[in-house]
C-alpha cells in the first residue's frame, strides 16, 4: 500500500513535469507515431512480396506487430525514462541518494519517472492493436483474448528485465553505452516472428537472450495451436530471467563504488 501511494506521487510529479516542457512533450508523441508508421509500413511492404510470413497471414502478422507496438508503448510509458538515467546515476555516483531511501532502490529507480507523453502514445498503440484484432480472420474466444493479454503483459515485464540485465554491467564497465546500444539493436529480434529463427540463433533468442519470447511466443499461443510446452517455456524463461536480474543487481550494488565509479 505504501508503494502504491508512492507510485501515485510519482505519477503526479511526472505529469506536472511533462507539462512544463510542452514542445518536448509533442516531439516525443510524434517520434513514437513515426516508429509505429515505419513498423506497420515495413510489414505492409513485405507482404507485397509474400502471402505468408513464418506461417502467419497478413492479418495475423498485423496483430503481432500491433502487439509489439503495445509492449513498446507500455515500456516507454512506465520504465524507459528511468532505464535511460540509471547508467548515469551509477557512473556519477548519484545512486547514493537512492540507496539511502527507506524504500526498495530497484522499485524507486525503475518506476520514479512516468512518461506522460508516452501515455498518449499508449492510447494510439492500443487503438492500432484493437483495429488489428478487429481485422483478424482467425476466430478466438474472450478467454483466449484475455490469456493473450496476460502473456503480452508478461512480455512487457520480460522486456524490462532484459533491459535491466543489459544496463547492470555498467557497475563494472563504467560506461553503459555499448550494452545499451546492443539492447536497442536486439529490439529487432522482438519485431520478427520467432519461427524465422533457426539453429543457434533460435537457441540464443529463445533461451539466452529471450527477446523472441516477448511478443512472438504469446502471438503463437494466441493463433494456436497453444501447446503447454510453449507456455511452460515462456513462464520458465521469464522466471529465470527475473532471478538472474535480481542476482546481478545485488552483485552490482556490491561492486558499486559511489562517486568514483
Amino acid at each position: 500500500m505504501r508503494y502504491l501511494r508512492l507510485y501515485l506521487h510519482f505519477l503526479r510529479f511526472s505529469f506536472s513535469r511533462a507539462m512544463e516542457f510542452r514542445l518536448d512533450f509533442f516531439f516525443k508523441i510524434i517520434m513514437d507515431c513515426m516508429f509505429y508508421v515505419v513498423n506497420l509500413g515495413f510489414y505492409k511492404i513485405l507482404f507485397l512480396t509474400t502471402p505468408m510470413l513464418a506461417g502467419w497471414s497478413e492479418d495475423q502478422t498485423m496483430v503481432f506487430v500491433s502487439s509489439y507496438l503495445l509492449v513498446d508503448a507500455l515500456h516507454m510509458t512506465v520504465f524507459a525514462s528511468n532505464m535511460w538515467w540509471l547508467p548515469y546515476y551509477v557512473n556519477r555516483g548519484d545512486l547514493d541518494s537512492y540507496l539511502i531511501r527507506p524504500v526498495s532502490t530497484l522499485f524507486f529507480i525503475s518506476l520514479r519517472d512516468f512518461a506522460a507523453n508516452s501515455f498518449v502514445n499508449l492510447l494510439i498503440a492500443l487503438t492500432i492493436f484493437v483495429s488489428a484484432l478487429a481485422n483478424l480472420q482467425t476466430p478466438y474466444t474472450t478467454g483466449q483474448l484475455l490469456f493473450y493479454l496476460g502473456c503480452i503483459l508478461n512480455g512487457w515485464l520480460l522486456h524490462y528485465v532484459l533491459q535491466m540485465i543489459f544496463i547492470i554491467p555498467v557497475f563494472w564497465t563504467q560506461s553503459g553505452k555499448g550494452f545499451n546500444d546492443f539492447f536497442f539493436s536486439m529490439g529487432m529480434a522482438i519485431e520478427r516472428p520467432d519461427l524465422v529463427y533457426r539453429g543457434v540463433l533460435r537457441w540464443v533468442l529463445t533461451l539466452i537472450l529471450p527477446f523472441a519470447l516477448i511478443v512472438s511466443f504469446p502471438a503463437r499461443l494466441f493463433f494456436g495451436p497453444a501447446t503447454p510446452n510453449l507456455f511452460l517455456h515462456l513462464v520458465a524463461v521469464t522466471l529465470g530471467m527475473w532471478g538472474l536480474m535480481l542476482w546481478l543487481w545485488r552483485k552490482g550494488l556490491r561492486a558499486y563504488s559511489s562517486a568514483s565509479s
Partner: protein
Amino acid sequence: MSWPVRVVSTELRKIIAYRSDFWVNFLGQTLIQLFIARALWQSIFESNGQTEIGGFTLGQMTLYYLLAPLTMKILMGENIGFLSREIYDGGLNRYLVWPLPPLGYKLLTYLTYSGFYLLQLALLYTLGRLALDARPYELSEFLRLLAGVGYVFIAAIGYFCLMCLCEMVAFWADNTWTLGVMLRFVAAFLGGAFLPLSFFPEAARNIIEYLPFAAFISGPVNLILGRSTPAEALQSFAVMLAWLPVLGLAVKALWKKGNLQYTGVGM
C-alpha cells in the same frame, strides 16, 4: 601539428577509449542485426520456394543487410546530441576562445566517427562477400567498393547537415533528441536501410528517389553491390550533390538565427 589532425587524433582516442563498448557495438550490434535480417529473408525465400526475390538472391540480400545498417551508422557519425547538448548547457561558449570555427570543428569530429565506421564497413563487406558469394572476387568489385566508400563519406556530410538542422532546434527548445530519432526513422525507412527500395510500390519509389535519404543510403549500397547501372549510380550521386548546397545553406541560415538566440548560459 595542424588543428584538424589534432582533432581527428583526439576523437579517435575517444572512440577506442571504452574498449568493451566498442567491441559489443561492433560485433554484437552488426552481427546480431545481420543474422536476424538473414533469418527473416531465408524464411521468406523458403516459403515462396524462390531463389530470387526482387532481383536479390539470399546471399545478395544478406550482403545488402550487412551494408545498409553499416552505411546508416557511418551517416550518423557522432550520433544524436553532438551539438544540442552544448547549446543546451552553454558549452558553445568555449568556441569564443578556441581559434576554430565551431561548425568546422563539429563536422571534423563527426567525420572522424564516420571514417572509423567506414573502415569497419570495408572490412566486414570484403569478408562477407568472400563468405557469401561463390563468384571469384574481381578488380571491378574492389573499385566499386572504393567508389562506394568515397560516396558514403560525402553522404555523411549531407547527413551531418540534416542532423545539424535537428540539433540546432535546441536554440529554441529544451530537448531535441527526439528530432534526431525521428530523422533516423525516416532516413532508414525511406533510404532503404530497413527494406531495399526495389520492394516499395513504384509510385512511392518515383518520389523517394529524389529525396536525400535514398541518395545517402541506397545509392552507395547499390553501387558497392553492383546492383545499379553506371547511369543509375550517377543519377543517385547527382541527387546527393544537389541536396548538399541546399542543406548547407539551411544549416548556415539556422546557425545564424540560432546564435542570436543563444544566451551562453545553461538552460
